C-alpha cells in the first residue's frame, strides 16, 4: 500500500434496484491534492461520496483509506479516520442558531480524539470557525437559527461543520451550487487555505470554470463510470466528455 494515496477505490459498484449508480469504478485520491469530480446530473457523483463516507453500502468493490479497508464501515466510524463531508442539499440543525450548530461537532468523538479534553470555550471556538468561513464577526447572523439563514450562509455553515471535525480529507458535494459568483469568489480562498494546511480535498462541482481554477486533477463520471481524468484541459479535450455533457442536455 503506498502511503501517498489517502483513498484507493477498486472496482466499486452500486446498484439501486435497477439503476446502476456507480459501475466498476477505480480511483485513487492522493494525499494533499485537490481532486475535482464532474459529470452530468445523475452520473453517480453523490453516490460515490455516500459510498466513501459509509452512508451507502456498495454492491461490490473495495474502498481503502490509508491502506485500511473501510468498504462496509459505518458512517459514524469513517469520520473517526478523518474523512469529513458536506451535503449537496445542506443539512444543518435548523432549529439551532448557526453557532450552536457548531457545538455538536465540537463535542464529537473525533474532536475529542484529536484534541483531548482541552478545547477551551466551545462557543468562542464555534464563532472563530464561523468567522473563518466568512460569517462576519459581531454580526447577527451567527446567532440566527439556521432555518432563517440565506443559502450562502448555509453553505458556509456546511463547510464550517466539516472543518470543525479536523479532517484529513474533506469531500465537498456541490458546495458552490446555488451561490452567486461573488459568494463563490469569497469561498475559494478558504478552500485554498485548507490546502495550505495540508488537507486533501475532493470537490464535486457543476461550476466548472471555478473548479478548474483550483483543482489539481479532474475526474469525469458518466453513468457511474469514469470516462476521463487528468488536468482540466485534458479532460475537456476528450470527445467522450464533450458527448457526455452534450448528451445530458436531452
Amino acid at each position, binding site marked *: 500500500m503506498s502511503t501517498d494515496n489517502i483513498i484507493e477505490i477498486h472496482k466499486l459498484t452500486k446498484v439501486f434496484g435497477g439503476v446502476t449508480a456507480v459501475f466498476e469504478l477505480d480511483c485513487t485520491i492522493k494525499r494533499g491534492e485537490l481532486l475535482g469530480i464532474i459529470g452530468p446530473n445523475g452520473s453517480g457523483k453523490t453516490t460515490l461520496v455516500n459510498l466513501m*463516507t459509509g452512508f451507502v453500502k456498495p454492491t461490490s468493490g473495495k474502498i481503502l483509506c490509508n491502506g485500511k479497508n473501510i468498504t462496509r464501515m459505518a458512517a*459514524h466510524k469513517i*469520520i473517526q479516520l478523518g474523512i469529513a463531508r458536506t*451535503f449537496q442539499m445542506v443539512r444543518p*440543525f435548523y432549529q439551532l442558531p448557526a453557532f450552536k450548530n457548531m457545538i*455538536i*461537532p465540537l463535542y*464529537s468523538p473525533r474532536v475529542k480524539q484529536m484534541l483531548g479534553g482541552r478545547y477551551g470555550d466551545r462557543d468562542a471556538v464555534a464563532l472563530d470557525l464561523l468567522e473563518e468561513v466568512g460569517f462576519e464577526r459581531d454580526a447577527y447572523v451567527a446567532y440566527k437559527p439556521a432555518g432563517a439563514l440565506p443559502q450562502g450562509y448555509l453553505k458556509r455553515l456546511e463547510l464550517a461543520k466539516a472543518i470543525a471535525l479536523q479532517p484529513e480529507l474533506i469531500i465537498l458535494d456541490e458546495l458552490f451550487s446555488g451561490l452567486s459568483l461573488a459568494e463563490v469568489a469569497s469561498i475559494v480562498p478558504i478552500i485554498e487555505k485548507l490546502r495550505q494546511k495540508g488537507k486533501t480535498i475532493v470537490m464535486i462541482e457543476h461550476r466548472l470554470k471555478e473548479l478548474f481554477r483550483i483543482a489539481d486533477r479532474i475526474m469525469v463520471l458518466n453513468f457511474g463510470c469514469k470516462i476521463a481524468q487528468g488536468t482540466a484541459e485534458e479532460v475537456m479535450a476528450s470527445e467522450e466528455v464533450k458527448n457526455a455533457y452534450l448528451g445530458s442536455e436531452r
Partner: protein
Amino acid sequence: MFAGTLVYAIVNSFTLILLAIGFNLTFGISGVANFAYGALYVLSAYLSWMMMNLLGLPFFPSVILSILATTLFGALMYRLVLLRVRGQALSEVIATFGIGLSILELFRYLGFVGFEYTLPVFFDHSFIIAGTYIDMQRISIVVLGFLLVVLLWLFTHHTSTGLAFRGIAQDERTALTFGIDSDWIATLSVSLGAGLAAIAATIIIPLGSISPSEGYDVLIKALAVCIIGGLGSTGGVIAAGFFIGFAERFTDTYFGSHWTMIVSLIAILIVLVIKPSGLFGQQKELEERI
C-alpha cells in the same frame, strides 16, 4: 376552594409531566413511540414491591435497583427487538405494545392485583398550604418533577451525550457525519425513557396502588400529554402537562368529577384542531424549505 384547587392542579400538572417526560424523550430522540412505556412503569413498581416484600430489602436499595433494572430492560428491548424493525414506525408500535401487553397481562395472570400492592410514601407528613391539606408525597412530586426537568435540560444542553441526543433528534444523517453512533444513542434514549418511567412510578405510585390497568392509564396519559405538547418537545410536555393538569382539577371542583374526562378530551380536540402538530410541534415548513 380556589386556592386548594390551584395547589392540586399544580400537583396534577407535575404528575402528568413526570408521566410523560420519558415517553417524550425516547420519541424525541429516536422516533420510537414506546408503547411498552406504561408497562415499564408498572414493572418497576412491582419489582420494588417484590424486593421489599418478598426479599425484605429496605426501601431505597429496592427502588434504586428496580429503576436500574427497568433502565436495563429498556436497553435490551431496543437491542434485541427494536433494532430489527428500526425506522418502521408501525412495527415499532406493534412490537413495543406487544411487549407491554405481555408484561401487564403476566402480572394480572399471576394475581398481582389488590390494595396491598403499593409502595410506601417517602415521608409520612402533611402540611396546610393556602388553607388546604397537602401531604409530603404530593410536594415531592412537584419538587422532584421540577428537578428532573432541570436535570434533563442540563444534560441535553451541556454534556456531549446530551448534545449527541439533540443532534440525532434534529438530523440523524448530519449527526452521523459528526461520528455520533445513532444506534447507540437510540438504545440510550429508549433505556433512559424506561428509567424515567421507573422514577415516575417510584414517586407517584405511593399515592395509589400498583395494578396492570395502571399501565394502560399511564400510556394513555403520556400519549395525550405528548400529542398536545407536540411529540418530542420538552417545552411542549411542560405546557401540555399544565394545560391538562389545570383543566382536570378545575373541572373537578367547579363542574364535578364526572365531567373531568369530557373536558380534558374536548381540550385535547381543540388544541389539535387549532394546531394539529401540538402546542410546540415542530414547524415542518422549515425542513422542507430547501
